[in-house]
């Protein structure tokens, strides 16, 4: 068991180190989310209420995540390393978990800037909204990483990932917006937790089939 | 459009979809028939050159 966790940690650390050295994905995601928020300011007509703005935060988060996910497996693809990883004596699902963990940390890094920016531009976010974001992050990372690996096998890589991801992201958006907006956020947070549990298990169990030859 | 027109439209859509499906299958059958005929021809040619 500790071997498994060590594998996952090593894989995640590798991704973080790669990103720190290359510094291409994170700055792009950051700039994208900030630009999107500014566009939203102009896209919202005057008199649109704060609740609508909360919804738009989630649009920004989902699409920024998509940007990052599209590049998630790029290091493995470009180096041909995915085949090597798959042959390595670690559990295949560890590859997925390590990558998902790395993507999660990327997303959190983005949100550390994006959420305060949103509070500044639009309306303040309360604790349940932030918790909603974190829980939704888990869902985005687990499902998105697996779908990105699937898309990597496809001819239309960048095109197909959003198509695969968006229907699955809809429940996350509902949960997240509900957590921010509703008077009883607990229901939505529980729902997000449920989504995370169900899909994390599903991804964990099925990843090895996605990368198998 | 009256209410009963809508009912007719709903059932009609299902019916038309079915008909389209049948048409597609018919076209596929025709193609498969051409394909098997071509393959039979190939098999015959093979048998004649080897025999």
């Amino acid at each position: 068991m500790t071997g498994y966790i060590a594998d996952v940690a090593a894989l995640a650390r590798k991704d973080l180190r790669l990103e720190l050295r290359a510094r291409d994905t994170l700055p792009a995601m950051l700039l994208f989310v900030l630009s999107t928020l500014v566009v939203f300011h102009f896209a919202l007509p005057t008199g649109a209420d704060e609740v609508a703005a909360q919804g738009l935060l989630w649009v920004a988060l989902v699409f920024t995540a998509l940007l990052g996910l599209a590049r998630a497996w790029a290091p493995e693809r470009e180096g041909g390393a995915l085949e090597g990883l798959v042959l390595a004596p670690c559990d295949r699902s560890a590859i997925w978990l390590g990558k998902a963990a790395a993507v999660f940390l990327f997303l959190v890094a983005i949100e550390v800037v994006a959420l305060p920016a949103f509070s500044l531009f639009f309306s303040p976010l309360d604790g349940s909204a932030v918790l909603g974001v974190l829980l939704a992050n888990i869902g985005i990372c687990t499902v998105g990483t697996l779908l990105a690996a699937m898309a990597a096998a496809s001819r239309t890589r960048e095109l197909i990932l959003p198509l695969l991801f968006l229907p699955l992201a809809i429940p996350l958006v509902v949960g997240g917006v509900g957590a921010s907006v509703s008077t009883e956020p607990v229901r939505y947070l529980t729902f997000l937790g449920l989504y995370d549990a169900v899909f994390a298990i599903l991804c964990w169990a099925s990843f090895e089939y996605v990368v198998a030859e | 459009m009256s209410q009963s027109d809508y009912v007719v439209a709903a059932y009609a859509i299902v019916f038309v979809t079915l008909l389209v499906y049948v048409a597609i299958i018919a076209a596929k059958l025709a193609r498969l028939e051409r394909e098997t005929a071509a393959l039979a021809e190939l098999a015959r040619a093979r048998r004649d050159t080897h025999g």
Partner: protein
Amino acid sequence: MPLIAAAAAGLVGLAIVFAFLVAPEDADQGISQRIFYFHVPIALTAYACFGWGAWKALRLLWTREERYDLESYVAVHQGTIFGALTLATGSIWAKASWGKWWVWDSNQLVLFLVLFLFYSAYFMLRFSIEEGPRRANASAVYALFGVALIPVSFFAIRLAEDFIHPTTFTRDGPQMTGTMFLAFCVSWLAMSVLAYALYRVELLGKRLDANLRELREALT
């Protein structure tokens, strides 16, 4: 197999008779309620097809037998067709009942919209990967995600009602009279058998295709 097709044809005919002649007219909605006899069974059959597709997908991943890939694909294909029909009949019913072609109020319609998007992506995925075990596995995993999405989306849409749009309309409840229920069941059976017949036909066609291709490769 011709027996199944004949049964399907007979049952569908019977269902129409029941829906129009046997069942009494609904007091509130009038004649447009009769759409329900097709719309809901088609929806249920779509769910069943997706479930069937997911089951076949699971079998594929379990046993790695190639034939399950095709069976799963055809089932998902049928489900998508019936799903599209659900959206179409539902939209017509919405127009008849409430005057608009689309309403976000109907949870079932919204759920089907999400599922339709999801399964459309299934086909895009399938057509963009080369044939082989990679494609079969990816399709199977995606089909499994689909059935997981069905209940999750259902709850999400229910939860979304609170802040999206308060439900102002309620539709058919389970207060159906005896004959109405009978008509509904007949229709449901008819749709299921119809879907199965179409499934078998399509499967046959695709298997023929595959066999012929192999034959051609062997001969040339």
